């Protein structure tokens, strides 16, 4: 039997959902794999919904909103872009970035709706089943995905992403324009750091461990693991447990 991917669609009420309805009214045929969750605006799609779906083994997630400038809520779809960008950045760590997509379909684009959905389903078919679907999920990827979900949900990431549009689009609190490049460097670093930190956290949740062994387990340079552990310590999430020989063991609090 050929692979039939499970795909979840988030459709904004005003454009994409209407476009999907129009596809129906026009009897435009497309594959059946996508199941739709209606939301009022693509900006409502919290990245955690996407991570949650992927964690359950869903093969692809498609977020659709109004075309830029057409948002019923003025700028909700721009917020969707920043959130989706972060989501995709995070998913690059586990090569899942191609399993999610953000696209625009207006209320009048029934045909286009059929096309983009068909295209996405075919694209996921080509990618094959999600390594964490089925009875024998890839534990390593699953662990990383869990870390991603936690990292993306952290205050820091949400704050950065939440302010991204305003900071880049208009001016910051000092009335200055933030250079996009500078902000991107900052957010890229934050994504990488928070991902690694939450991996460390998850690893320590399973068992207390030393920096050296964590480094081997997570394949991160030990000096960086040490920095992460110390940051987590100041956040009150990790602490020294004991010193074994010459190696300190850290534990999750």
């Amino acid at each position, binding site marked *: 039997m050929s692979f039939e991917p499970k795909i979840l669609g988030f459709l904004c009420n005003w454009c994409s959902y209407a476009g999907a309805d129009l596809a*129906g009214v026009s009897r435009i045929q497309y594959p059946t794999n996508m199941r739709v969750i209606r939301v009022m605006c693509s900006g409502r799609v919290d990245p955690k919904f996407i991570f949650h779906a992927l964690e*359950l083994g869903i093969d692809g997630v498609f977020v659709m909103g109004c075309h830029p400038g057409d948002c019923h809520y003025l700028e909700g779809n721009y917020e969707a872009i920043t959130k989706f960008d972060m989501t995709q950045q995070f998913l690059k760590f586990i090569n899942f970035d191609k399993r999610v997509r953000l696209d625009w379909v207006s209320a009048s684009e029934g045909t286009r709706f059929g096309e983009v959905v068909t295209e996405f389903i075919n694209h996921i078919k080509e990618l094959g089943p999600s390594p964490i679907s089925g009875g024998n999920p890839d534990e390593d990827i699953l662990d990383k995905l869990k870390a991603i979900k936690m990292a993306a949900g952290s205050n820091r990431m949400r*704050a950065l*992403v939440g302010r991204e*549009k305003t900071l880049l689009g208009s001016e910051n609190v000092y009335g200055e324009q933030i250079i996009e490049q500078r902000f991107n460097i900052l957010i890229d670093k934050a994504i990488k750091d928070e991902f690694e930190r939450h991996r460390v956290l998850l690893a320590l949740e399973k068992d207390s461990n030393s920096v050296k062994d964590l480094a081997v387990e997570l394949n991160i340079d030990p000096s960086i693991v040490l920095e992460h552990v110390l940051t987590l310590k100041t956040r009150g999430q990790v602490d020294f447990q004991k010193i074994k020989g010459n190696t300190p063991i850290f534990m999750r609090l």
Partner: protein
Amino acid sequence: MSEEEKKDIEDEVRVGVFVCHCGSNIGGLIDCKTLAEEAKSLPNVAYAEDNLYTCSENGLASIKAAIEEYNLNRVVVASCTPRTHEPLFRDCVSEAGLNKYLFNFVNIRDQCTWVHQKQPEEAYKKAQDLIRMGTAKAVKLEALDIIMVNVNPSALIIGGGVAGMSAALNLSRQGFQTYLIEKEDKLGGRLNSLHKLFPHQLDASDFLDKIKNNVQNAQNLQILTSSIVKNIDGFVGNFEVEVEQNGKNIELSVGAIIVAVGSSLFAPTDLYGYDGKKRITQFELEHKFINNDVKANNYVMIQCVGSRIEDRPYCSSVCCMTALKNAFVIKEKNPGANITILFRDLYTPGTDYEKYYRDAREQGVLFIKYGLDKLPTVEEDHIKVFNEYMGEELILPYDLLVLATPLVANNDNKELAQMLKVPLEANKFFLEAHVKLRPNDFATDGIYIGGSAKWPVDITEAITQGYAAAARASRVLSHDSLEVEGATSSLPEYNKSLCTGCEICIKVCPFNAIIKNEEDEIEIIEALCKGCGVCGATCTNQAIVIKHFTDDQIFSEIEAFGGH
């Protein structure tokens, strides 16, 4: 929430599922009966049935009966699209005593059977999934209050220029109590400084006197000159405005606000030797006309002085016509005068205006195009300009050099924008809700815009926009009360401790529905909230709940779809 509605949430969750055949639109492809049967085994489903047309009188009666009989407190209809039919079913459950938000729609027609006509099996599976997901969400649905907002049938117009006066006249004539406030000590705005009006060479002062007269004699219209806005609180239908007139404060309560503050003049210091005497602006020229103080014989006008450049990249839209108009005035008084207009592009849109341009050429006004790379250079009594068409430099003697400068945004726009919580665009003009679709609205309900506060416009356009803004405002003012969306975002009591007060939600909300109240707590003004949910998806500590689309509800949908 009424007494009887309360039972909805207190009892155990009992869902009723109604699967619609939609004639043969759904039932023709997949087996709705079995779908309904299967739905019975879903968690919390107390009853399920299939109907030929659930939206028919029979279908609706059947839903009501089932609610009664099976004591249902959630209803799921799997049929067409909520976009057309949700209000119908909401009314139906509401009539049966359920809160209308306890209804959930599953779309198995427009987005299933119609689009998978050749794959009945897969379509059936999809319908199964969709019903399971819809039911899972229904289980988590909560009753929501329906919010009504009273409307104070009065309006405030900020700015007593031609746009503001037009709006004020319109609204007062509709019978709404209207307040018109003007910063200066007299009404009229920019019109006060104009000599003639294009394209018909009307006398500006005549025109102004007429409109002023109308305004001053209008009923329900109170004019406050020498007044400025100090503070604005409240929301659509209920604004509290503090106005300062000559040092004393006046409190106004209004239901809508129109921004018609106009624009300011640009002083071209450092440009083309501007000195206000021999080298003046078009506006100064008009002033001279009024005082009958123009004696020159050789005139040169330069267009686009200080506009369409890097610092001020916009076209001020009125300057070309102004130059033509003033050229006519000169020619009328002194037919032998030499007038040369140096332009970059001449903007004279529409039939009337283009004709105006042709007339000017016929009367002997000389037009020379210059480019940004070779700007005209101004000497004491002549000007050097590179003629692009002829490819050579010309020397033009002048007695009076007239510079066409743009209209610029008022300095205090930022202050007013902050009070109104509405945005400005890059050049500090006010930014409307949507350039094409909502040109005279702000995103914030109950606040509207007209005239050159938004963008430089001529008198005609200003009047049009004044009326337009008034019409938009009257849409709100003509209701005693407004029903606002119940599925709003909210910061529930139990989540208050999660909120750090970071104000990100305030900043992402396009409707200014979120504020920090006097207790220094985040407060969502439900009357303004449209329920888009962006704040909830952004909230750093995930304290904000989007009613009717809660995290919990969406998670249960995702989980009902499942993965493995």
